[in-house]
Every structure is written in C-alpha cells, then in structure tokens.
C-alpha cells in the first residue's frame, strides 16, 4: 500500500487545477477541521491553486473541541490561506431546542450538515469550488454523513486510503502534531474513529485493500491472517453504505432516464 508521494501529489494537484479551470473557478474552499484529511486536501489545494486562491473555513461547535480548532488554525497559518471561523453552535442548538434529541450521533450528523450548508453558502459568496476531504477508507465504510462531510464538488482524496493519506501528509509537510493525532469524526466529545469502528486504520486499510483493490474473496482474506469477525464487519459496513456512494434511485419509467440512459460526462461542455 506504499505510494510514491511526489507522483501522487503531482496527479492530485493536476486534478484540482484542471477541474477548477474547466468549471471556470479560480478559487477552492474547504472546511478545515484540524484533522489529517482536511489538512492534506488544503495542502494539495494550495499547491494546485496558490495560497491566495484557497479559503479555509473553521467551523467549530462551541467549545467542544478547542484543541481541534487550534490544530485547524495551525494548518491555516502554515499555509497562509484566507480563513474564517464560524461557530455552528447557535444554529445547531436552536434546532435541537425545538426538536430535542438525546442521540449524539444524530446531533453529530446535524453538525456535519450545518457545516456543509455553510460551505455551500460560502462557495457561492466567494465563487469558490468546494474541495472534498473524504478518503477511500471512509467512503468504503460509509463512515461519513451523507450530504454532510461527504458533500463536495471534487474530492482529491477519494481514491487514497487513510494510511496512504498519512504517507502523503508527511511528504507535503503537514505539521507533525496534525499527522500524529488520533483520528476523530468529531461527532461528539472524546470520540475516536478507531474506538467506534473497533479496528485500527492499519487493519481496516489492509483488509479493504485486499477485498477491493485486489478483489480477493472473503475467505482468502481471512486465510491471509485477518480475524473473521473483523473481515465480516468490514464487508457488512461496505454493503450497508452503498446508498451513500450513489445518486438517489429513480424508477425508470420514461423512454430515457436521468442517470441511467441519459449519460453525459461530468466534464460536459467544459
């Protein structure tokens, strides 16, 4: 799963640059959480577009994650990009005051969608295209909020596993304390991805790599030394989240259906 970081950086910056220019955008915008993925996306965006053309939104929920906010600020400062901090707690709290919930995941999803909503609004204000931050591990496991943190215009990280992002981050010069911190989706205080998933990213990525990239049957993956329960859990998560990787289903009743046999390139007329 080793990657050649300079080659990958070259491809991904080319991708960002070309896609933005096709859609006649000069600027990119993204949410900076203080975590590894958004830091790497921001570093790539700056390499592709220049620091003047990247806007980082720091969108904390009140005081919940002070340290994340500080890390996000470090990324912004290192890259010298324009940034804006918007506390999402007034909007989220107002909503839950009217529609209370004790489900912390539900609350976390709402926060992710609040951030998405602000990002899209600022995309319009700034005429800047939203650059995604979801990695391949998250996309395959469905470990993200649909129409929340998964929402974006282009996603340079979508074909790199978390452990590969770490390799890339080291090469790009992402600050060490951001690279070394424990990954969290930030859905609630003290949450960590690996605790919630019950597996380490190293294990997850190795299993995903064999199942997905190498097309290895389940039994062979287990035979190659991974615990049956872990492999089964990962397969269950992949299957359960297919809807997050697709457009909504449409009953195909006309002579030609959007997304089915009305098929045009994303780069149509660009």
């Amino acid at each position, binding site marked *: 799963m080793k990657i050649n970081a300079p*080659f990958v950086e070259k*491809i991904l910056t*080319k991708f960002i640059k070309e896609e933005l220019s096709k859609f006649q955008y000069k600027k990119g915008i993204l949410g900076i959480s203080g975590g590894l993925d958004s830091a790497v996306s921001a570093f790539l965006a700056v390499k592709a577009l220049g620091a003047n053309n990247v806007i980082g939104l720091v969108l904390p929920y009140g005081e919940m994650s002070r340290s994340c906010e500080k890390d996000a600020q470090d990324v912004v400062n290192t890259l010298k990009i324009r940034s804006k901090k918007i506390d999402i707690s007034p909007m989220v709290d107002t909503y839950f005051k009217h529609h209370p919930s004790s489900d912390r995941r539900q609350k976390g999803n709402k926060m992710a969608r609040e951030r998405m909503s602000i990002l899209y609004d600022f995309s319009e204000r700034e005429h800047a295209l939203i650059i995604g931050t979801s990695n391949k591990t998250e996309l395959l496991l469905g470990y993200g909020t649909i129409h929340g943190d998964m929402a974006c215009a282009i996603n340079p990280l979508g074909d790199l596993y978390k452990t590969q992002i770490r390799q890339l981050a080291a090469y790009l010069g992402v600050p060490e304390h951001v690279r070394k911190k424990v990954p969290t989706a930030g859905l609630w205080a003290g949450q960590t991805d690996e605790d919630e998933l019950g597996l380490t990213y190293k294990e997850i990525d190795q299993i995903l790599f064999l199942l997905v990239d190498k097309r290895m049957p389940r039994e062979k993956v287990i035979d190659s030394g991974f615990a049956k329960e872990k492999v089964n859990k990962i397969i269950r998560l992949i299957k359960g989240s297919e809807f997050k990787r697709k457009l909504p289903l449409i009953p195909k009743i006309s002579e030609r259906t959007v997304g089915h046999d009305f098929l045009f*390139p994303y780069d149509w007329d660009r």
Partner: protein
Amino acid sequence: MKVALAQIAPRLGDIQHNLKLHQNIAAKAKKENVDLLIFPELSLTGYTLKDLTQDIAIDARKDAVFKKLKVLSQGMPLVFGFVEEGEDGLIYNSSAFLSQGQTLHIHRKVFLPTYGMFEEGKFFAQGKNFRTFSTPFGKAGMMICYDFLHYGASYLLFAGGSGLNIITSAAPGRGVTGDSSFATSSMWELMGKTIARFSSAFVFYCNRVGLEDGKVFAGGSFIYNPAGNLIAQAPYVDEDFLVADIDLEEIKTFRKKWPYRRDDKPEIILEALKRIVKNYED
C-alpha cells in the same frame, strides 16, 4: 525518417478547438521536418463522450473537418482519432491515416473495452478487421488502445506484413505504488517491447494526457525499434511532443537476423483457429 508523437490533452466534445490543436501541432512538426505525425485515440473529440458520441460522429467521406485534416496531410502524413459515422449509420471509434490529401486507411477499433471504468461497447459498434496498408514508408497497420492488449491483433498485422505498427491510445493510468508512474504504464511498455521484437517491426504508441471525469490519462508514449529497443519515450502524465529519428532499414536488417516472419505459418494458425472456433462448447 522522423516520427512525432503528439501527446496531447484534447478538449472533451470540442471538435473545433481540437482541430486547431491538430493544426498548430502539425505546423510545429512541419518546422521540425517531421515525416509522420501521430495523434492519440479520439484526438479530435476527447474520450469520455458517453451520449455525446452520436452527436459528435463524422462521416469521413463528406465531413468538413475531416477535409481540413486531409488538407493538413498534404504537408505531412498524419494519424488521428475520431468518432466515425459509417456508411451503415453505425458509430465507430476510428483512426485515420492521411497522406497527400488522401485517406490511406481507416481502422475501426475492434476490441472495445467494456468493463470497470470503460463502457465503449455501450456507445460504439465494433470494427471487424485488422488490415495492413501501404504508406510512403512501407507497409503499416493500426490498432487503437485496447486492440493492442490483444496480441492476436498484433499477429494479424505481423502476418499482413506491417513494418510500422501504429497504436493510438487514450489509456488512463491505474494503480499507485512506490513507483513514479501508474502501475498500468508498464503493461503497455511490456507489450510494446515484445510486439516490436517479435514482429520485427516498429511500434509507435501514442497515448494522451489530461483528465476527464477524474480519469487520468497516463501519457508515456513510446517508440520501439524492430529489435525491441526503446528509441524514445515521452514523460508520464504531462503533455509532450516527442520527435525521434528512426531508421527504416532496421526492419530488413532485423528480419534477416531473426527470420520470425520468414518462418511464420499463417496457414497452420488459420486452420488451427478454425478448428478451435468450430469446437467451441455451447
């Protein structure tokens, strides 16, 4: 003889823009005294056309853009790729070899990749032949991208006497490893070297670059001589204009030394193939 491979990034669905691109590069090639200029697969249209395929198809016998490219070939023979509407109304992924204002040959892609990220079989009709044809430089044959990954196609050009195998390609790169190129690039190079060596023919592989819908076209265009030696190679992923001097005499020299072609037995292969096809199990 001077051969140039134009490793370009055509604009998707924009024939006029791409025609200009062809004309500009041809002017540059002319200045450098290039004898044969090769563009990649679907160089006139871009690759990921999907439902645009039908709208962008042109009839080689009457289309105005095609005529302009014929005019361009008066200065220098050239190969380019386009979406062809056949006389039968079917749409093909084609490459044309033009020289002196004439169409010497049009190859219609036979092997249409329809798996994984590829869906050509959904939008194109398949070609039915691999013909060799005479050029000012001797007998040549053409293949388009996935054609070249089926070595039976190369065998037909070999049996047909081609000394110049021209492969136009729009091959995306797949697989990032520790190397500074896509894993799939070495697959094309392996085939290029092997086919050149065992066909005792030149292999000109012109791939495109640029991105379409997230596909990253890998570049890395190359030329192998009939001994299977790499003559020149363009960089991966970046645009390039690769010009190389080749010695056509090497075809004869190599065929004298290694008589693969003299000792070829197409009749036996043909009969064996007939038997194999006849005995397919239902």
